[in-house]
């Protein structure tokens, strides 16, 4: 198991290297001159040249690349041109916001999609099966940004059930003591019910918009995979042995059916990481997606690089985690490696 994970990690290294190279190239090729932007609109050509020297932009590309990699190895992603803050720090403070949103959305999707898919397969052809079909069809046809905008319009503007889509917490409340960076967990740990409730209300709409989209592939895969497994020989053996229906469905069928669902879960998670950019923009969510969008607009390349690198590392970690879970469930994978 450990060797399997290590070998997977080894295969991930080239992709990380690739991402490092690509981020470096891409940001240099972005339109706009960072030095000119940083020096300000009224700056003289001389001032711009000074800034360029200060930022190391006057050096040759290979030299810049070596310096870039050297900084990376020290965990230094450079400074944001617009705020002057270290990018590593800014990303570290914003990452929990994105992570909390994504994880809550994913948990919500899993909590609904998996029971729905299992029930739809077990009671094939009944109303719950039809419900599952409707949910999956509607889910895939609603892009996240659309659901997000619609929700904000209906639940905030029209009905006023939800708070204003302006970030993680009402401006009159102060964030909970920093423990994990997840407002829900931190406020729960410190017993701050008011903050918990406020954070939950802010989180609800963006998380639900993201959950709705991820519901569809998860429910569809759960249903299909359960149907296939329920029709398989070993489930027939389990039934022929008189095992209780509960044992047949959960211990025998579901554990086998969950394998492809885990794969889809990984894909959905990667997708949600990307969808963050849209949802955070709609709900002014102070996560890394919004951060990257703002940086991109201002040709602030260090944060963009930082964002892409962070994403790459997240993808790799995620895939490792998926492999790990897969290996836990399926003994055949453990042996293959």
């Amino acid at each position, binding site marked *: 198991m450990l060797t399997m994970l290590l070998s997977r990690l080894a295969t991930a290294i080239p992709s990380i290297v690739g991402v490092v190279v690509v981020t470096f190239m891409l940001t240099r090729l972005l339109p706009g001159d960072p030095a000119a932007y940083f020096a300000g609109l009224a700056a003289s050509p001389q001032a711009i040249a000074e800034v360029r020297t200060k930022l190391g932009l006057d050096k040759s590309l290979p030299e810049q690349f070596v310096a870039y990699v050297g900084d990376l190895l020290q965990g230094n992603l450079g400074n944001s041109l617009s705020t002057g803050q270290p990018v590593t720090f800014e990303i570290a403070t914003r990452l929990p916001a994105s992570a909390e949103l994504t994880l809550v959305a994913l948990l919500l999707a899993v909590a609904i999609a998996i029971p729905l898919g299992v029930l739809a397969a077990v009671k*094939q052809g009944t109303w719950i099966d039809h419900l599952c079909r409707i949910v999956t069809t509607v889910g895939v046809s609603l892009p996240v940004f659309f659901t997000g905008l619609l929700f904000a319009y209906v639940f905030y503007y029209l009905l006023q059930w939800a708070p204003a889509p302006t970030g993680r917490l009402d401006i009159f409340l102060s964030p909970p003591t920093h423990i994990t960076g997840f407002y829900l967990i931190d406020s729960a740990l410190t017993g701050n019910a008011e903050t918990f409730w406020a954070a939950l209300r802010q989180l609800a709409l963006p998380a639900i918009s993201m959950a709705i989209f991820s519901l569809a592939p998860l429910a569809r895969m759960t249903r299909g995979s359960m149907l296939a497994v329920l*029709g*398989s*020989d*070993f489930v*027939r*053996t*389990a*039934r*022929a*042995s*008189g*095992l*209780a*229906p509960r*044992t047949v469905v959960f*211990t*025998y069928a579901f*554990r*086998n059916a969950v394998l492809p669902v885990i794969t889809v879960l990984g894909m959905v998670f990667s997708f949600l990481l990307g969808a963050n950019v849209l949802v955070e923009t709609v709900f002014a969510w102070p996560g890394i997606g919004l951060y990257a969008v703002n940086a991109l607009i201002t040709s602030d390349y260090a944060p963009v690089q930082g964002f892409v690198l962070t994403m790459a590392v997240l993808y790799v970690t995620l895939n490792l985690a998926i492999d790990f879970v897969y290996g836990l*469930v*399926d*003994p*055949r994978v453990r*042996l293959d490696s």
Partner: protein
Amino acid sequence: MTAVPTLAVDDLSVEFRTRSGVVKVLEHVGFRVDRGEKVALVGESGSGKSVTAFAVMGILDAAGRVTSGRVMFGGSDLLALSEHDLAEQRGRELSMIFQNPRTALNPIRRVGRQIADVLVRHGGATRNDAPRAAIEMLKKVRIPDPERRAEAYPFELSGGMCQRIMIAIALACRPALLIADEPTTGLDVTTQAVIMDLIGELAAESGMATIFITHDLALAAEYCDRIVVMHAGHVVEAAPARDLFSHPRHPYAAKLLAATPGETVALEHLASIPGGLPDLRRADLPPCRYAERCERRTDACAQPLPQRTVGDGHVVACWSPL
């Protein structure tokens, strides 16, 4: 012949609803299995042997429906039992083993646990004793090094080993009846013989009755007391193995015998049975589903099928038997 049979199937009909219409897969199927008796269910592929077994066990697909009949077992009609009561009987009083042992076992559960699951379910062992009892079962089906094998997953074992595990699961609770659906298909010849002997011995030891499903008449003759021949969802002939071999009465049974390689028939003289099974979705199926392939067909064949007793325990469903 007055003894109460272990299993008596009577007038069993099964339909499948499919996209292309209703398939009458079984029609008025009847046979009996006495205590400790070994009965073979033979017939070519698609004749309804497995469906008969599934109907008896109550594990038909959702598309399948029993439209008539009774399956008397242990004093009650299995078809009339609730799913809950039937599940209590399955695995304890009547068990089944399947073709293709590799896929018939849960691929991600240790085989010892799979045996233990059945034991615990039917009160054969407590949760704590179950692992030990499972190892005992592995010993009984002669798996070498049972302590270690109990920890194995099916993919780590050979096909023959997997079939032994299946047998261990099926026999864990000492059932009165075992249905073995082509238990040796897909195994090599030596393993086949070993598995058949194992089933035979364990059955003799506990007085268990066995239904042995196969399309290999030679195998049936070697291991079974009685043979029930099926064709397209009908039982066409049922007889003691010796009688069927010496004097088959149904034209189909005779063809089937002639198509079986044995000591007397050289391989090149093997007759193949002309025609195929009729399409069971047809509305105009003749009363005798073999009629369209039959050389001995007469006008009488348009009448409903007879059940003629032509010898001691020898019944044939034919208007012009051999």
